[in-house]
């Protein structure tokens, strides 16, 4: 039962049945864009996985038709109300052996293409691009090994859309600020691990799903045939915002990929200069508050809530709290170094000194804290230097 048979079996027949099934349920327009089957995907592996899926699906449908056919036929014809007299046979090992060996034979036949696909999936040949994927509590971090490009990929759906105060965009909950850009036609190898709990990196169109386990590294790969944007989500429960850490893979032609890489490396230098300039520049209180509010919404609101009330005791409130109204240095220290053993991460390596100064100033003056303090980027740098 090689895959060409499955392809013949799947293409026209399944489209017809699926469309008919859906159309009977739903109005015409809605049915058009509802995906209701496994994506065929854009890699050879995802194609063969789709074929396996449809083959075993059609086998089950065939067996079901036979089994339920016999059963419903017997329900209709052998009814007491129609005067059916009960027979007395209650054993026939020959029949039983037949209906045990046939499914077993089918399954063994099924095991051959399945093994072939699985072995192809575990192909460890050399890849042109190695990307280290690290799962964080509720975002992904990508690092291009030997290219010195790395960035966080956060959900970019605005909070208003999630809280239904704004219209939902087309890729609601499946859009990120920095997509993972990979070249098409080349083998890209993903080294998947985690920084805290177990996550699972899954992109349906690439048929790649591997668990990210802290302390261990897992490997998967993909050769994408067509350029395009492919979206996936975390597939292992990892806490509060497990549903809000999507994955967006942007497959481009090798040339575009190289351009993007160069642009990214330049951008990295610019950011460094900008951060240095921002730290050197003198900020007014108002500028710090405005910047601080933006940084707070992006990095802190997920746990401490936009209102600053947090969710005690797991996420403490910042209103009139000893830290946000107490000693400034302690406040900077907890933002930069985080608090080990709790969900409070170290933001020192995720935010520039200017951003840390802005968010600390904002937290000390918002929601009625108004301590009147202004923390400048230089204060933050002095603190880090000790």
């Amino acid at each position, binding site marked *: 039962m090689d895959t060409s048979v499955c392809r013949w079996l799947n293409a026209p027949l399944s489209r017809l049945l699926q469309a008919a099934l859906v159309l009977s*349920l739903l109005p015409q327009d809605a049915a058009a864009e509802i*995906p209701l*089957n496994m994506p065929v995907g854009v890699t050879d592996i995802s194609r063969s996985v789709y074929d396996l899926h449809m083959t075993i699906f059609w086998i089950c449908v065939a067996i079901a038709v036979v089994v339920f056919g016999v059963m419903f036929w017997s329900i209709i014809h052998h009814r007491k109300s129609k005067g059916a007299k009960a027979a007395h046979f209650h054993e026939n090992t020959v029949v039983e052996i037949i209906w045990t060996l046939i499914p077993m034979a089918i399954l063994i036949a*099924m095991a051959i293409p399945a093994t072939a696909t*699985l072995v192809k999936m575990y192909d460890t040949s050399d890849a042109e691009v190695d990307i280290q994927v690290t799962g964080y509590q509720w975002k992904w971090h990508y690092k291009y090994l030997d290219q010195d490009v790395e960035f966080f990929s956060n959900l970019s759906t605005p909070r208003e859309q999630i809280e239904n105060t704004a219209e939902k965009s087309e890729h609601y909950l499946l859009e990120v600020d920095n997509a993972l850009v990979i070249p098409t036609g080349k083998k890209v190898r993903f080294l998947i691990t985690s920084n805290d709990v*177990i996550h699972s990196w899954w992109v349906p169109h690439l048929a790649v799903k591997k668990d990210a386990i802290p302390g261990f590294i897992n490997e998967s790969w993909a050769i994408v045939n067509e350029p395009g944007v492919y979206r996936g989500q975390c597939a292992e429960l990892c806490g509060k915002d497990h*549903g809000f850490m999507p994955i967006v893979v942007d497959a481009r032609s090798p040339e575009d990929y190289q351009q993007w890489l160069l642009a990214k490396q330049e951008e990295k230098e610019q950011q460094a200069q900008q951060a240095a300039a921002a730290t050197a520049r003198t900020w007014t209180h108002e500028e710090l508050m405005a910047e601080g509010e933006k940084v707070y919404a992006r990095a802190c609101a997920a746990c401490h809530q936009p209102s600053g009330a947090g969710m005690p*005791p797991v996420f403490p409130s910042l209103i009139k709290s000893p830290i946000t109204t107490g000693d400034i240095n302690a406040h900077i220290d907890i933002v930069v170094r985080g608090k080990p053993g709790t969900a409070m991460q170290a933001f020192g390596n995720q935010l520039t000194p200017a951003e840390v100064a802005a968010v600390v100033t904002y937290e000390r003056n918002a929601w009625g804290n108004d301590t009147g303090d202004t923390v400048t980027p230089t204060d933050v740098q002095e603190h880090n230097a000790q």
Partner: protein
Amino acid sequence: MDAASDIAHEAQHHHGPASGLSRWVFTTNHKDIGTLYMWFSFLMFLTGGSMALVIRAELFQPGLQLVDPGFFNQMTTMHGLIMVFGAVMPAFVGLANWLIPMMVGAPDMALPRMNNLSFWILPFAFTMLLMTLFMDGGAPNFGWTFYAPLSTQYAPPTVNYFIFGVHLMGISSIMGAINVIATIFNMRAPGMTLMKMPLFVWTWLITAFLLLAAMPVLACVVTMMLFDINFGTSFFNAAGGGDPVLFQHLFWFFGHPEVYIMILPAFGIVSQIIPTFSRKPLFGYASMVYATASIALLSFIVWAHHMFTVGMPLAGELFFMYATMLIAVPTGVKVFNWISTMFRGSLTFETPMLFAIAFIVLFTIGGFSGLMLAISPADFQYHDTYFVVAHFHYVLVPGAVFAIIAAVYYWLPKWCGRMYDERLGKIHFWWSFIGLNLTFFPMHFIGLAGMPRRIPDYALQFADFNMLASIGGFVFGFAQVFFLFIVIRCITSGEKAAANPWEGAEGLEWTLPSPAPYHSFGTPPKID
């Protein structure tokens, strides 16, 4: 029917049940303890069900409308725990307590005092679990499979109550299993050989051995969690040399026998009901007995098909794929035995039979999606999506829950001496059947289309089918409240039931009068 009259006569001069509350707290009677288990299971079923309705209400539309993600995770976790450990397992233990002594001709369970203790642990275990909802940090939010390190390093402070709750449930199940084995091996009436026992008794014997072998592993896992959280060990913490995957191996080594624990008694119930309403002996009794017996061993060699995406080496994936495929056939094929029992029988369709037929049809659909999940490369696309949620709900809801409901309709006349209202029973059946399929069938499609499990909010392309599932969820939920009404109405004011209200029913329990006397089979019955 002279046997029935002298048994009834003999029951009179025995002392009847004590009166008031002390009857239920200090009871060592297998019938009372069975009733306690059944009512406790029904209460837990409605509690777990209401949590499912909270989940479905949130997932009715995209966007966060009802609960915040943290509480949503608590609901999914508690829904799973309460349904598995609170609704399905106690219901089967309740049925075992009620039926096994009567089916094998024994006066009571072998260890009546332990029987009482194994029930009365459960209310305390579930109070401990449910009170975490009202404590700081909220209830456990790491899924009913409580994977480390989410359940150890990143757990809310109430995780310790969860651990002690699971310990108590485990102890209760182990004691229940010991009781069942002791009763079946030692207290059968003369002439009732092992090979003549009804299939419900056989499936429960194998379930008891599975419980004995699997529950200690669960106790071991939660104890290791307790030590990791409170005493600084590193079983599941990579920092100290431990390994989160060790947790998954241990949990699923318990997990897979657990799913057989939840389905074998259902096989037993259906194997009692189908022959009765087909008026024809069960087809291939020997095959059923031997296949069930083989599950006791085979269910322990396939656990890692729950972990295909964890990063196992290729040899591991292949082994567990082949093993899962091989053992799926002997169990899956049992469906043909029930169909052959019905074939050329003389069928009538009272409510228990309707539920049994729905069990066969829908459980087989769950079995087919299970076959698809066994294909390891395809499982990379199915794992942890709503396709898996659809699979195990199709196997558990029409599987275990419909079998329990069918058993209640079938044996209620024997327990309370009154017949349920057949018309209401049929309404309840069709109402549940439609609600169930409307809830869980769309989940196959949104799972295949890429919606992961345990998420409180989803992308727009999954919106329509989630709405269908939520509507179905509420329909199915209220059908079970209607079932509560039917049962209470039957107990209080159903008309009198004969000793054997079903024309084709065989079995020692039908030789007793209805309602079954407080003490039955004081002198063992004669079996030809």
